[in-house]
């Protein structure tokens, strides 16, 4: 685990690797100082590998005294070395000094491991009365009275007191270690959790991206397939229609009553199939962005009248009333006449399918604005430039649709109710073509519907701007 290697704490076990990386030296020194002030004993804290982490001591008079003697300094260095190398693995170690002083070396254990040690001293055992022989022998210059006077200044500690003092200090250090360790673990856990959370998210994002790319690829394949198939289907179909027209026209000889009727059916169904294939081809062209618009000013009323006229025979047959409502003086639409006729035809065709006999279809054009930008977008009041536009509505008095169905009706091949396809025909392409054509005009198409009342499609298209 790389993060564990880089940090002083192993997260798997929650172990701390080195005392000095966790514990705050300032705090440790403060604790030592307060110990010194309270008990008058020098104290040092060392890490496991011997680094001095805190040191509060006072040079004793006796130390100054012996250091002034030739043999004293060497003997003192020997004692210091002994204290430094003492290994209190099994428990406290007492190191005696030739002056009669004593050092107590105590292990610092944490969570079952020795992580360092502390040294209390030097102090004199409480029972010391005379200058010890070891001090007198260190140098011929040692004067008994002077040594005794210097020793008198050393703190005297009884063994059981030394034990209690060590226990007290051990407990304080343990608490300090525990708090520091916990603080460290907490921050390490924070970082590790965030990292783990991020890793998880990144993994999921990558998977989603993969799935998305694959879907995009599939979508492209589908479009290509549609284009190819439509084209390949259209070629033989054109011949079929052409030959049936020739048969109908009697070029290959006169036809009898039933023969004529059959040929007519072949031709009519052929036309129907051709229209379907053409719309498939349109869709794939639109999806590939290969559609080119031939724009010109179109008078809304003329456009609507023309559409109404086209559908009149079917409307009469179904006793549906088609009404047109458009003022003469509306601004012209800036659009491709062929494509817009296709848009409106698809919408009216759709309305005819779902309007029951005796119903009404209303075609209405009104002046409006096209506002760019998304609703609620930041700075929209500044960014959205309004453009004069014409809104064309196709309103039927059919069965209507439920609100949850509305968002999907512009998807290619989507049918609100699969069964209506069989009843009404169509491949579910009409509305998706409408949407794409309107968007190619930088327009918008919206739908509103109420079950049992009817459906209204509103197509907003940019108008020709007179002052430009």
């Amino acid at each position, binding site marked *: *685990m790389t993060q564990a290697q880089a940090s002083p704490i192993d*997260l*798997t*076990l*929650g*172990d701390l690797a080195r005392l000095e990386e966790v514990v705050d030296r300032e705090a440790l020194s403060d604790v030592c100082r307060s110990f010194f002030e309270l008990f008058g004993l020098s104290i040092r804290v060392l890490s496991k590998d011997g680094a001095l982490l805190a040191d509060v001591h006072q040079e004793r008079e006796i130390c100054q005294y012996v250091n002034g003697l030739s043999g004293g300094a060497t003997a003192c260095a020997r004692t210091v070395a002994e204290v430094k190398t003492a290994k209190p693995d099994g428990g406290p170690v007492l190191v005696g000094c030739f002056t009669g002083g004593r050092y107590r070396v105590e292990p610092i254990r*944490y*969570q*079952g*491991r020795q992580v360092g040690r502390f040294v209390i001293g030097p102090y004199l055992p409480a029972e010391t009365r005379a200058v010890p022989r070891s001090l007198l022998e260190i140098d011929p210059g040692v004067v008994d009275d002077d040594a005794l006077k210097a020793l008198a200044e050393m703190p005297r500690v009884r063994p059981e007191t030394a034990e209690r003092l060590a226990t007290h200090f051990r407990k304080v250090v*343990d608490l300090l270690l*525990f708090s520091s*360790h*916990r603080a460290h*673990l*907490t921050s390490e*856990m924070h970082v*590790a*959790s965030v990292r*783990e*959370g991020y890793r*998880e998210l990144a993994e999921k994002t990558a998977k989603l991206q993969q799935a998305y790319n694959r879907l995009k690829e599939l979508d492209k394949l589908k479009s290509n397939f549609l284009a190819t198939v439509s084209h390949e289907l259209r070629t033989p179909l054109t011949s079929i229609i052409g030959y049936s027209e020739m048969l109908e026209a009697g070029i290959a000889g006169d036809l009898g009553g039933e023969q004529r009727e059959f040929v007519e059916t072949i031709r009519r169904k052929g036309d129907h199939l051709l229209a379907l294939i053409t719309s498939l081809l349109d869709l794939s062209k639109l999806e590939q962005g290969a559609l080119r618009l031939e724009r010109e000013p179109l008078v809304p009323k003329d456009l609507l009248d023309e559409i109404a006229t086209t559908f009149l025979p079917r409307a009469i047959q179904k006793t549906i009333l088609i009404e047109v409502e458009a003022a003469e003086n509306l601004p012209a639409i800036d659009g491709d006449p062929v494509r817009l006729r296709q848009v409106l035809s698809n919408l009216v065709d759709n309305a005819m399918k779902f309007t029951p006999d005796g119903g009404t279809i209303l075609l209405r054009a009104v002046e409006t604005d096209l506002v760019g930008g998304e609703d609620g977008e930041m700075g929209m009041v500044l960014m959205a430039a309004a453009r004069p536009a014409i809104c064309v509505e196709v309103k039927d008095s059919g069965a209507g649709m439920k609100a949850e169905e509305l968002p999907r009706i512009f998807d290619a091949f989507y049918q609100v109710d699969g069964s209506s396809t069989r009843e009404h025909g169509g491949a579910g392409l009409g509305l998706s073509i409408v949407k794409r054509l309107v968007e190619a005009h930088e327009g918008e198409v919206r739908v509103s519907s109420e079950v049992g009342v009817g459906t209204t499609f509103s197509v907003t298209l940019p108008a020709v701007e007179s002052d430009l």
Partner: protein
Amino acid sequence: MIPAPMQLDFTARELTVKLVYYGPALSGKTTNLQAIHKMVQSDASGRLMTLETRDDRTLFFDLLPLSFQAGAGLSVRLKLFTVPGQVIHDATRRLVLQGADGVVFVADSQRAETRANQRAFLNMKENLRENGMQPERVPLVIQFNKRDLPDIRTDEEIDALSQKSPEPVYKAVATRGTGVVETFLGLMDRTWLHLEKEHGLEQKFDLEPSRFLKDVRQRLGFTRGGER
């Protein structure tokens, strides 16, 4: 990323074993640790460390370190962890589970918590796998906690099921300390048997057979209990 479970230090003659208490939110994982902390001989236990709690709910983990000297001069360190039970802390749960040598699954006995137990158990298996461990190979014991509450799964029900269960099943009231030591020692048994089988520790450390488990009981002060 294959975590290194169980740490062995031959020069220091030190063995570190990680045990994890897993389970759904509020099933009593921390309470188990608290109970052990209270019952263990004081010189064998470190402070119970609780990392980041909010409203008494564990956010990261609790850690109870136990340590003692086993036979043949072996220094043993046991690290008992709990995971945060709340669903949202999954990343933390996975981190804590890393390198577990044994797992106690603490289930809530209340009938209403049956689904939560199941979800947490599946989550544990998933997280073990994510950590590169085979769930079937991890020493596991199951504890049905909160036996003192009303509307719990009955003893008969649990007993009948545990007959068929490959893992030892324990019943507990962790708030009173009942069944906590038994669960812990049960896991210790399984974990040791597993480690022994995998690493031949008794031979490596020159331990008498089954001495280790006796030591665990004795040194921690659990001389009674621990029978299934």
